[in-house]
């Protein structure tokens, strides 16, 4: 880890003023479960680290007519314990349960989950965000068992966010604040597939702070299903989050979002549209799962993830509909 300047402001105004024009100038520290290890491995070496944990307004969960506001500093644990989350957004509660380390649930924050960097082992061993060597990505010709099954590159890593797919399916928005103003971004647009090594995989600018998430008040049946190699602390191989707006027993409209299969959470629009007017049965869920992965282009060693993504969609739909998933 290189030496850095440490700032610990107590207001958002001070915090945004401490950020810079580039990621090398300053980075935000919340739970620290990712940034610290990136710094120890010399993957990130910001000149300044801005601790935002003392900014009270970034915490807390509150319900209003407009929906559920979740502060960026809310931890996984707080999120999972919240009654509104548990009753209205089981897909989110389930995504939190997928973070199976108590230490990370206690420290990791909602904002951090959305802003964390990819876990791609080429990136994490010092080959840059896109894992390039001599101008060529190491991923398609290398060890890609955990990599993307959607997209044409050059970003083959998968978005590591646990909450992203569920939040997208629920239609959530993120609030981003800088010294020059505030903007709202759909979570679906918060994630970006970078075109080069110097871009980020999120829409946040280096001088902005993600302050809160708002999930609109809309009654949906929702669920998340994920497949991992281990039950203990591990990253999902594939996740599916679904949110269903119901009309009687039938689906009026649906959102189907896959996680850990592409450089961003993957919104399966056509598959979701198939659900309109249908009652969820095993056959319908199977067909939607199949449609959700229709555009997959697996790499040399990750075709198995296509199957996992398909099954995750099927099981998430059955679970959302209150049916036996397995």
């Amino acid at each position: 880890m290189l030496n850095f300047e440490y700032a610990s402001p107590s207001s958002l105004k001070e915090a945004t003023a401490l950020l810079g024009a580039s990621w090398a100038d300053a980075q935000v520290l919340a739970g620290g479960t990712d940034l610290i290890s990136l710094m120890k491995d010399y993957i990130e070496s910001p000149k300044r680290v801005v601790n935002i944990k003392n900014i009270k307004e970034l915490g807390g969960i509150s319900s209003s007519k407009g929906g559920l506001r979740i502060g960026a500093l809310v931890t996984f644990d707080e999120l999972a314990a919240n009654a509104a989350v548990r009753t209205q957004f089981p897909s989110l509660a389930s995504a939190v349960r997928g973070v199976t380390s108590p230490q990370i649930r206690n420290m990791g924050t909602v904002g951090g989950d959305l802003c964390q960097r990819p876990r791609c082992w080429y990136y994490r061993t010092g080959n840059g965000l896109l894992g390039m060597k001599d101008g060529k990505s190491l991923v398609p010709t290398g060890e890609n068992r955990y990599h993307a099954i959607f997209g044409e590159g050059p970003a083959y890593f998968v978005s590591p966010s646990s909450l992203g797919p569920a939040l997208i399916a629920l239609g959530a928005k993120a609030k981003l604040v800088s010294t020059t103003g505030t903007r709202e971004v759909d979570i679906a647009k918060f994630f970006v597939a970078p075109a080069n090594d110097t871009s980020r995989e999120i829409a946040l600018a280096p001088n902005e702070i993600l302050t809160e998430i708002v999930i609109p008040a809309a009654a949906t049946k929702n669920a998340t299903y994920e497949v991992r190699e281990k039950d203990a602390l591990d990253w999902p191989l594939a996740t599916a989050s679904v949110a269903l707006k119901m009309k009687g027993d039938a689906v009026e409209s649906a959102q189907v979002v896959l996680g850990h299969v592409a450089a961003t959470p993957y919104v399966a629009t056509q598959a979701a549209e198939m659900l309109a007017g249908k009652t969820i049965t095993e056959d319908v869920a199977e067909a939607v799962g199949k449609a959700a992965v229709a555009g997959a282009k697996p790499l040399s060693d990750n075709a198995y993830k296509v199957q996992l993504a398909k099954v995750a969609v099927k099981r998430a739909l059955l679970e959302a509909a209150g049916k036996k998933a397995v």
Partner: protein
Amino acid sequence: MPSYSWPEPEKRKIIGQRISRLDGLDKSSGRAKYPSDRNPQGLLYAVLLTSPHAHAKVRSIDTSAAEKMKGVTGVRVISKPGTEIQWAGTEVAIVAATSEPLARDAVRAIKVDYEVLPHFVREEDLSKVGARAKPAGEQITGDPEAGFKDAEVTSEGTYAIPVITHCCLEPHGAVIQWEGDKVNYWPSTQAVSTVANELARNLEIPATNVRVQMEHMGGGFGSKFPADRWHIESAHLSKASGGKPVKVFLDRASELTIAGVRPSHFAKIKMGAKKDGTITAWQSESWSTGGFAGGGMAPLPYVFNKIPNFRLNHTAVSLNTGPIRAWRAPNHPQASFLTCSAFEDLAAKLNMDPITFFEKNLQFTPRPDIYKRQLAKGAEMIDWKKNWHPRGQGSGVIRRGLGLGINSWGGAGHASKARTIIHPDGSVELEIGTQDLGVGTRTVLAMIAAESFGLPMSMIKVKLGDNQYPVSGPSGGSTTVGGVSSSTRKATINALTKLFEAIAPSLNTTPDQLEAIDGRIRVIGNPDKGMSWKQACQKLGVTPINEMGENDPKKPEGLNTAGAAGVQMADVTVDTETGRVKLNRLVAVQDCGLIVNPKTAESQVLGACIMSVCAALTEERVMDPQTGRVLNADMEFYKLAGISDIGEILVHMDITPENDKRGIIGLGEPCAIGGIAAIANAVANATGVRVPQVPLIPKNVLAALHGQGRNA
């Protein structure tokens, strides 16, 4: 000469009791100090610069910038210009500084110019390894052609088990201090009594000048015998600093890259049998890698080594990867996995229950009766009759299956000397230059001494982990418990004999008429005639008794012996849509002769079963063919099972009068052998499909079920 033999079972007061580890509370409360906890005043921190290239020649190395940094006390070049590096992670230079971050900064200031050479790091496809192949030659027993001709059913399969590492919780390292002409050495080691010689030779000082001390250590599993290069260099750095202590412990990436691995094993196996299940022939073409030096050859066919006709061909593959070190039962887990997989595949083809098939062929093992009994016991524990079904007869998405694996090991006691001191105040010390790897050696020694003296364990002070104590062997090959128990038994009996000699006259009897029981020395057959232990010791005046005991492996005198056997059986559930395998239950039936402490013995088996679960379900070193580096040199993608992945483990120690009579046998390794085979076979039973390679992750399981992916 006194009799050293173990007391008859019915007369034992302490041996055979379930005693909790003496250091358990210290360890669980953090009071126990490991070598890596040692932070003496003035400590310097040493950090390695390692090669990023898997194969390269060092052209030049410039350490000047690092040397000039404030707080840096020394920089040493390990791979001098001209050195050809053969694996990524090789030690190139080492820096000592007043803090670890500073040492890391200094390491980054060293400039190395490498001539990068082509590397080769993958062995799974033998047809692609070219000149890296080192054939071991063909080995033929009997007449394999005739054996296969005689067969009514044959079965062929390919099986693969990857390179894994030791994953010691405490990484490899030491604190080391050069004071005057002496070196104080606090390593994390499996060889307290012998490691000084290796260090001294490299430092060119007399071995008598090296003091080795280690109270506790955080796991070795076979990888912590040598005085590692970074230890030796750190001693030099201590000397250069004017004698400051230097701490050197590998970071996790180096720990997983250069501190030792277990070799992979791949094999194409063909077997033939009669319709009644009798095996007629075995043929295997196997290959493995143990890094650049090659190495690793599984003993095939495993345990059933009296199969009349077999042909073996093995090829070692040299790769630009980190070196092997002994890994808990070297080559045996691989051999058990390969053999038991091929056995169950043949049994399935014969439509036979694998237990029946194994039983049918037990005459080809060295210990048919023991295995027969153990198979029956394991079957009872896992409810085989109820839960087993013929392969492929499961249905639905979620399927359950059972499988089995077997083990065999030596485990005779190593050479060991121990000293017992009985003080006139009645206190007792045991000094022995052994080490407690975390398995309960300290506890077992106190039990044995207490048994000999008829005293409570609290009166025995066990002193180990110091090379100033009598020499005891390194802890490898499951030789420790037999060796140290025997030497301790002899030392305590020798000391007791001296005490009897000292007090016999005052009891008007002869020493051979005395016994030590329940804190008293008394006349045999006349329990009222005697005195308390304390009174007896007071008769020593001012001179303590100081007696040695020795275990000579050539003459164990019935105290210890070799030859452990065991079976493991697994019950798994497989989600056939996701390829997820969940272990429901793993049962282990294990014999190891006389068991001193059933509680710590069971702990050993539990730990071994957990290692087997990891290796079967998730564990694998992943090498990148492009960069030549380990991609998962961390605990994130080098996946060990967590509590929720382990399932239920049931242990049955095969305690019988016949086993007890054999004396003590080491246990650490045999129980780590059969679990992988059992789990892999259970998956085959559940799904009806052989997953040819472990770990049994969705990628590999789905590839077998649906023919997807590279490994289809």
